[in-house]
């Protein structure tokens, strides 16, 4: 994909975006909750 063949590199990029999304969703869900 995109000229990158190594699944380890692609997985690294995917996990970056996934963990960012988790952070955004967590912050929004807990916005008014401690």
């Amino acid at each position: 994909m995109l000229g990158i063949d190594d699944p380890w590199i692609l997985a690294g990029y995917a996990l970056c975006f996934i963990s960012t999304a988790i952070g955004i969703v967590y912050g929004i869900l807990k916005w008014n909750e401690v």
Partner: protein
Amino acid sequence: MVDQTLFWAAAAVYSVVIFFLAWLGYKKTKCNDDYMLAGRNVHPVVLGLSYGATFISTSAIVGFGGYAAKLGLGIIWLVMLNILVGVLIAFIVFGKPTRRIGKKLGIMTFPDLLGKVYKSDFMQYVTGLIILVGMPLYSSAVLIGGGRFIEQVLDVPYLWAIIGLTVITAAYVVFGGLIAVMYTDALQGSLMLFGMSAIMIITLSLVGGLDGFQALTDMSHLVPTGLASTGMTGWTSFPELGSATWYTLVTTIIMGVGIGVLAQPQLAVRFMTAKDGKALNRAIPVGVIFILITTGVAYTMGALTNVYFHDHFGKISVEMTGNVDNIVPLFIDTAMPEWLVVMFVLALLAAAMSTMSSLFHVMGTAAGHDIWVHLRRSNFFPAGLRGSDEDASKLRVNKIGTFIMIAVSLGLAFIMPGDIIARATAMFMGLCAAAFLPAYTVAVFSKNPSLLGAKASLVTGGVAWGIWTVFVHQAESSVLRVSELITGNPSVLEFPWTVVDSLFIALPLSVIAMIVGMLIERKRAPATAEG
């Protein structure tokens, strides 16, 4: 070289804003609590940006960006760990209890936290001492990153570059305390976000858009023979599992910094500035987006510099300059349009200053609040030298402590060798994790934290890290030369131990020491209760 008039005009505007914020901090600092913790009442967005801007420095952009140019995109795993461990786990798991305990016990600094939770002066002194010994490595690395950049782009002698950078940062830390530090962080963080986004777009347009990655993949036959023989396979693939390059990339660059970030004193202090737990939750989205954009761009751009340099000069990045620390400055200077170079220089100086300011603040308060304020009560000092217990006196001591540690950092920046930025950063973070992480974790989670375990872990982690760094891990031991003088060999063990980072040895030992200490203390406790 950029147009001098354009740069200095932009820099003048920027400096005026910084000094306005410093003055605001100075006006708002009415007591020691303000100077140390910004009055424990910081807006969530300022907190998120400040945490990110402190976390990401020239070290990440210039030092680790240079490593991405040398070793390729495998470093993207560090971005993942920076987001997952550095923001999500740090804020959700460590941040909330740290803020709560900090408020309950009236804690001011990281050594203060360990000292008060364990009710032990020893913990506070030794933690303060490790900060004073280890942190100048990191603050000097950040300073060198800023200095090399100014030297490259503005043609200012390196000596003047680092002195200028230090003086401006020192001025607002010493006078404005943490309020000024966090306000300027938020401004600098915004500048970094904008600058790095623009850099990504322009870098991609220079290397043919997303086809640049294919071009980088096709360059794998150009990997220098030295790196290829130690396991590097190309810039868009991971090094060979178990090779020396793999160990360096995974144990030092990715894990050393990825895990080491959890026990960083300057970041733990940030949690204590939050008004309540809600503010910490709200800071998380800002923090994750900030880290994704700044480090994600820095490392991706770093690797893609190979395509640009190969297209234009027929050389790969490490052949363009002898020093890994110079690759990113050279790329920005030769490839970017002038307005963006100015923008990037300011963003980068912002990155350097926002990190340095916090490090100066932590080192100064470790010297002032954690060591001096306690030491002066002891019998070492004649009564005339002790100063008073007044709040104003404590504030002055912190300012003097900060000033002294700034001078130490500046001195160190003169004597450190090249290729050092990423290395020194990883060293400091490894030391923090090995010495502090078990004691910090137990301090925030255990209802009955074991002092013996904490002492054993702090000392074992620090000493084990030191021995491994000096005698085994070749990247440091061959430079320090102590092992060579004593044993005749730069490393006393064989491969692969020579490329396993000190953190991987010292942190497990530190955890074991903590568990053994806890068990011994627990065994003693029932005996004393019965007898």
